[in-house]
């Protein structure tokens, strides 16, 4: 796999340590989530990788080249924290400035405005835009140079549900086109819906880096329900394929230790004379995995 970004032992000290010795790789074509609570060093990490913050130590390579130069930056589309544009200029003029900096033709401007559905408002001043429109304009700006990598820092921060869905749809369609995306967020379900890989940060430390699937080594769990709950619990316990069987809110939660499909389980339980009223195989949500990881790193 071609590596877009390799980060080695990156550290940034302000008065406190904001980013502590983190390393990770980003491979081409994947969607990466940078996960962590507020103040865990996500924006600082992006700042260093985008050359706006000077690192204390460590190194990184973009496209196999040491550090971040302006040539590299022109190939990256980035949205940081909040949409930044000249408030008194129209969307079109603002994008002309970005196009001038990135040295690309103005003909791209209408194309990207079309993608984010702002073409009809392109002559209006940026300051007249709603927050959702501002955020969409920054996505348009990031897409302007047809970037190889897209960096998104909290792209749905402060948006209403409709705005969140719009942004998520745009990100999903960009991801499908094969663009590598790195997205930072503290909203777990957001990351879960769009990312294939995650890097989990906690107080400046990277506590996990890898695929979403491999993040927890549990094989998932079953949710079951039957008329006679206590009988079901004892039957499930006798199979010896669950690490734990617990009752929770009238549902039985059975953690899988050796893999079994839902239909197989259904058959086995039925053979024991129990008919299920509810059966569902589930993966741990990213949220519970994340909390688990944070708990582990605490101990």
């Amino acid at each position, binding site marked *: 796999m071609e590596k877009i970004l390799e980060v080695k032992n990156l550290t940034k000290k302000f008065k406190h340590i904001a980013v502590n010795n983190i390393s990770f790789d980003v491979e081409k074509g994947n969607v990466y989530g940078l996960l962590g609570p507020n103040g865990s060093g996500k924006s600082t990490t992006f700042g260093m990788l985008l050359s706006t*913050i*000077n690192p204390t130590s460590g190194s990184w390579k973009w496209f196999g080249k040491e550090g971040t130069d302006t*040539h590299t930056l022109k190939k990256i589309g980035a949205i940081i924290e909040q949409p930044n544009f*000249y408030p008194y*200029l129209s969307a079109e003029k603002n994008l002309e400035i970005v196009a001038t900096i*990135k*040295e690309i033709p103005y003909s791209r401007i209408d194309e990207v405005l079309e993608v984010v559905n702002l073409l009809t408002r392109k002559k209006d001043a940026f300051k007249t835009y709603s927050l959702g429109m501002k955020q969409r304009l920054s996505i348009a700006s990031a897409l302007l140079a047809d970037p190889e990598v897209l960096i998104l820092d909290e792209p749905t921060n402060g948006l209403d549900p409709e705005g969140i869905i719009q942004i998520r749809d745009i990100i999903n369609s960009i991801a499908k086109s094969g663009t590598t995306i790195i997205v930072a967020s503290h909203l777990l379900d957001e990351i879960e819906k769009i990312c294939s890989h995650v890097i989990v940060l906690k107080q400046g430390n990277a506590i996990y880096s890898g695929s979403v699937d491999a993040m927890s080594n549990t094989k998932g769990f079953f949710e079951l329900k039957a008329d006679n709950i206590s009988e079901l619990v004892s039957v499930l316990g006798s199979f010896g394929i669950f690490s734990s069987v617990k009752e929770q809110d009238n549902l039985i939660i059975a953690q899988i230790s050796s893999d079994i499909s839902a239909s197989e389980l259904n058959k086995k339980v039925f053979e024991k004379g129990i008919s299920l009223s509810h059966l569902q195989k589930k993966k741990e949500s990213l949220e519970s995995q994340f909390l688990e990881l944070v708990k582990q790193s605490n101990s």
Partner: protein
Amino acid sequence: MIRLLKLEYLKNLNYRPFKIFSGLYFVVLIVLLFIGLVDFDILGMKINLKEQGMYNFPGVWNFTTYIVGLLKIFLGCIIVFSICQEFSNRMFKQNIIDGLSREEFVFSKLLTILAFTAFSTLLVFVIAFMLGKSYSVTQEGDLVTKEIYFIFNYFLKLFSFFSFLMFLSILFRKSIFVFLGFFMFWFVEKILIGIETFRVQQNITELEKAKVLSTTTFYTDYLPLESMSNLIPNPLIRTNMAQLLGMQFKFEYPWYSVIACIVWSTIFILGSYWILKKKDW
């Protein structure tokens, strides 16, 4: 370079207040050059600068550049606002992320400064020349060009002044702090000048004073604002009235101030770059 000019054009000339105030500056500049044609009534005395020799060659170069030089603070405000808004709107950071280097950022601001300075200089040169041709009592070739170096000094004075303001804008990033900082700087410079003058004059008699003052090298002469102001002397003592009162106009070309201004401008430009480089955005 064309790219950076285009960038500055897009950023500034689409901003209406910037356009309006820049336009006003040049209007006021032109009007000020014609001030000698107006009669003033000061405490019952009628004063007409043209009759005081304002448009006579070679003094016309000194008079005109000195008078329009007072306007530089007006243009300075426009430049300060234009640079500070890059920071208050977080656009410097965004520009960097979009792929503008810090060198290019400083250079693009310098281009704006150069464009304003060059255009002001050109206007002053052309209009002062026309006024001299129309109203000067002497039209001898030698005298016409004798002090034309004031035009260059005017250019340098504006350029170093705006470089200084650019430096302060990048240092403080908020226009109100830039003005406060500028005022403090000016104040401190004046105090230092006062202290040095006082020390030089200590332990000498009244008779020696004039001689000592004219021969001593004042270190404070090389401070930024002082060396800028030394580039173009106050032409008041060149007026016919002052000459009648027996004042003598003596002026040597201020080579040291020219060098000081060039050195200071270089320091301000490199300093601006250094701040942009060192700070985390």
